[in-house]
Each structure stands twice: as C-alpha cells, then as structure tokens.
C-alpha cells in the first residue's frame, strides 16, 4: 500500500512539465547539472526512482528542492506536531460533540429539540470550513476581539481552528449517531432492559449507546482522512505553520520530495489509524470477529 503511494506520487510529480529549477532567468547548464546531481535528479528516470525508493525505506526523505539545505525529515519534524495537535483536538471535538448531539436528538425524537439539532447538523454539513473559518475570524477575531485571528503557540490560538475543523464532522457524526441510536432503541434487548424496570438513563447510556456507537466507530477511519484534508484549509486560513501549508506550497513549487514526504507520512498515519479502529471495533462488539 505505502509502496503504491510512494510510486504514484513520484511519477505524477515527474509527469508534470517543468522542473523544480525552472526560473525566469536561465541557469547555466553546468550549475543546473550540479544542482540536479545534489538533489539526485540526474540519470535515467528509472534509476532515480529506485534510488528514491531505497532512500525512503532507509527513512531518508531527502532534501527539499525549494527550501534549500533543509531536509524533508527536518521540515516534517517541525510541522507534523502542529498538525497532530490541531487534528487530535478536532478529532476529540468532532466525535464527542457529534455523539452528544446525536444522542440528545435521538432521545427527544420528533420534538422541537430534535428538529432544531438536526437542522443545525445539516447546516454544519453544508457550510464548508473555508466559509466558517474566515467568518469566525471576522466575528470573534476582528469585531469582538475575543480570540486571536491566527498563528500558533498559545492555547487561545487553538480554539478557532479546532472548532472550524471539527464542525462539519461533528455534524456528520451527530446524524449517524441519531439514526443508529433510534434503530437500536427499537430492538428487543432494549425492551428487555426497560421491562426490568431500569431507569431510562441506564437503558440509553449503558445498554443502547454501546451498540449504537458502532457506525460512528466505522466512520472514524474516513474521518481521519477528512481531517487531514481539512487541516490543509484550516492551516491556510489561520496561518498555522503545519504540514498542510507546506503541502500546498510543495505542489506549487514542484518540490517533489517534500510533497512525497508529506504524502508518505499522511498515508502511513492513516494506515496505522485504521488498524487501531479495526481493533477497537472488535473490542466494542464481541459478536464481530476480525479475520486474521
């Protein structure tokens, strides 16, 4: 899987016309040859490719062709923690907020509260984060001046980006949660629990929620992928020095190795995460066996 990703990125970048050293001013051929050699971009395409694969396996993601003399490993080491912090916080906000809202709506089925919260979820789903982000900046950052408009470092600077990133996914999870909980509440074991005379709270939170949460757990894999994609936008809007901004720039600058590095790390992360989700799925529901 990772191998496919590495190869695909490598060849797609090389397919594009124009090299990383094309400038307005022509570089003398001797210097260009030296540059190409330094960045290991000389020789036939095939040997470049195998050389790159070997380096990646050794954990060396090479030098960035745009940010001279900085290695991709170095750039990623600085930016990934930022992206993780933002993504992790949004992940928590989206799952907890979504589960809470979905449960809240399902328990009050067909009341005004239910319709209102599902309407809010539809709204959150429809308004893209690059609309929500600048709007939040305008309102809370510039008009009310409650929160900083961007940057990175203090906890207050984390609030707006994390909320922006979490909002649409909280909406998706809330809808999933509501549908699933409504279905579970109609099942026999819930009726049994009610017949035993247990209070409604215990029935919902102890019996039903545990089963109803499964579709949400299945969604966590795609959620992680969406959060990574979304973090690119949020990092741009709030000027956060994360990996997303470098990703966009690396495409614009034809910085193949930086681009490859970001993509490799993203995919590796998602693969690990999906394995974890599968494992937790088996833990949550004993009826499911994970095939070896």
């Amino acid at each position, binding site marked *: 899987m990772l191998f496919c990703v590495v190869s695909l990125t490598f060849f797609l970048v090389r397919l594009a016309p124009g090299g990383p050293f094309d400038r307005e001013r022509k570089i003398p051929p001797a210097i260009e040859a030296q540059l190409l050699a330094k960045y290991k971009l000389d020789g036939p395409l095939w040997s470049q490719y195998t050389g790159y694969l070997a380096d990646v396996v050794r954990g060396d993601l090479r030098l960035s062709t745009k940010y001279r003399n900085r290695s991709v490993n170095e750039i990623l080491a600085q930016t990934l923690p930022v992206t993780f912090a933002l993504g992790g916080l949004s992940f928590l906000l989206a799952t907890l907020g979504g589960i809470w809202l979905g449960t809240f709506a399902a328990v009050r089925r067909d009341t005004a509260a239910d319709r209102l919260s599902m309407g809010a979820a539809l709204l959150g789903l429809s308004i893209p984060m690059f609309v929500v982000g600048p709007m939040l900046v305008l309102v809370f950052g510039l008009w009310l001046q409650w929160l900083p408009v961007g940057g990175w470092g203090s906890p207050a600077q984390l609030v707006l980006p994390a909320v922006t990133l979490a909002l649409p996914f909280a909406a998706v999870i809330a809808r999933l949660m509501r549908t699933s909980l409504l279905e579970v509440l109609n099942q026999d074991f819930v009726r049994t629990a009610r017949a035993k005379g247990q209070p409604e709270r215990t029935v919902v939170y102890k019996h039903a929620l545990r089963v109803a949460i499964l579709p949400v757990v299945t969604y966590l894999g795609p959620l992680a992928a969406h959060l990574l994609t979304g973090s690119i*936008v949020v990092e741009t809007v709030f000027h956060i020095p994360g990996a997303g901004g470098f990703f966009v720039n690396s495409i614009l600058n034809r910085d193949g190795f930086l681009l490859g590095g970001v993509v490799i790390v993203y995919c590796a992360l998602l693969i690990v995460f999906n394995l974890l989700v599968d494992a937790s799925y088996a833990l949550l529901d004993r009826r499911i066996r994970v095939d070896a």
Partner: protein
Amino acid sequence: MLEPGTASRILRRPAARVCLGVLLFVGVAAAVGPALFPESYREPGPLQYAAPSLAHPFGTDLNGRDVLYRVLLGARISLIVGLAGAVISLFLGTAYGLIAGYAGGRTDNIMMRGVDILYSVPRLIFILIFINAFDGHVREFATRWDWQWLVSYSRIVILIITLGLIEWLTMARIVRGQVLALKERPFVVAARALGQSHVWIVLRHLLPNILPIVIVYLTLTIPAVILDESFLSFLGLGIQPPQASWGSLLAEGAQAINPLKIYWWLLFFPAATMSATLLALNYLGDRLRDTLDPRR
C-alpha cells in the same frame, strides 16, 4: 419506490418549497444573470473596494469588479462542475454497484473491500497532485489540435473528470445494497429461469428499479462535488483567475481580511450564496431519501 405523488408530498413542507425556490433562483440567475450586466460592469473599474450600494449591490473587489457579477459567474462554474462531476460519479458508481451486487460472492467481497479502502484514503490530496500533473499536458495537447475551448477550460474539464472519479463510492454502496435485495425477488429469479442473459437482466430488470434511489443520491452528490471543487479553488489549485468559482471568490475574500479595514462583503456574499445552495441541495436530498426509505 418513487411514486408519482412523492414530489408533491415532499413539497407540502414549506422548508422544501423554500429550498427548491432557492435552487431555481440561483440556477436561473447563474444562467442568464451575467448577460444582463452592462459592459462596464464586466471589466475592472476605477472603484476599488466599494461598499455595497444601489449601483453595486454586493460591492466591488480589489480590481473594482462588481462582486455580484463575479458571484454569478462563479455560480455558473461551480454548478456546472457539480452537476457534471456528479453525473460522471453516477455512471461509475451505478455500474460498479450493479456489477458487485449482481455478481455477489467473492467478486462482491473484493470489490466492496476496494471501496472501503478508498473511503479511508485522503482522495482530494491525490486529486490535487493529479490535476497539477496533467493540466499542462492537456493544454499542450489541446493547443496542438487547435481546440480553443479546451485550452481555456482545461482546468475545469480535468476538475470535472477527477472529481467524478472520486465521488462515486457512496453511490456504489447504495446501488449494491439495492441490487442484493432485488436479485432474490421473484421477477428476477423468473427472468433467470427463462434463460435471459445477465446483461439483459441487469439492464432491463434491475436498473429501472434502482433508478429512483440513484437519482436521490445524485442530489446528494452534487453538493459534495461542489464542495470539493471549491476546496481546491480555495487553495488556489482549482479554478484559476480570471475565471472564478465560489471557492476562488472566497479565497479572495479571505485574503482581503485585515484588522484595519474589514471588507466583509467580499466574503459574505459568495459565502451566503454557496451555503444557501448547498443547504438547499442537501435538504432536498435528505427529504427525498427519507421518503424513499422511511427506515433511515
């Protein structure tokens, strides 16, 4: 399945009528609106960052262009990309789902596993790389064959195709589920017993029966594609200036934010138009789906 009364039953709700009205309004305005503007509105003018007024209801931008005019042009491109991309994904998803569901067994298993894997891949990230790798080639190709329209619209064409290529997953899942249920029904079993060919059964017996649900999911795919397109354009990697889409207009609006002077209209109007359209599409899609499948 979709009965004749479905549309009127959905439209009995006032919210649904409002949504349909919004969609029709935006669609008609995008189609004929730009042509109604006098010549002077279409070019950059001397009025920089003018606030909304009677002459310019949505204000003007950095180059003195009328924002209303640009929003309508953007609506045109966003809607075309959304619609065309969704149609491509409809064909792909329906074909994939039909084959997987009808074949069943191991083929079905492998095909749906593939869909599961694609779901957890950050697809837009690959699209980004893909578009930037191929745009130059397509343009070169078009220049060689002297296809003027493709030269200036190469980005849009690539966008439509690639976005159609990534948004078919949900459609494939839904179609497969429907086919699995349908293929055990007596009329299909009878068709098979009569010795009708697989292709005939799929096209004449299964396809007409899944069509309503496919159309419902089409209304839900359009907003998804519009969202993807504006995501790419917002990052400056989709539609390129001087062309505009909602995403690139929003990007301009977001760039114009600064603490000294707030040009709110650059952000607010594109955002409001886009959100209203997406909301209307999602709402109608949801209602249609609920009517078809009350269990959800």
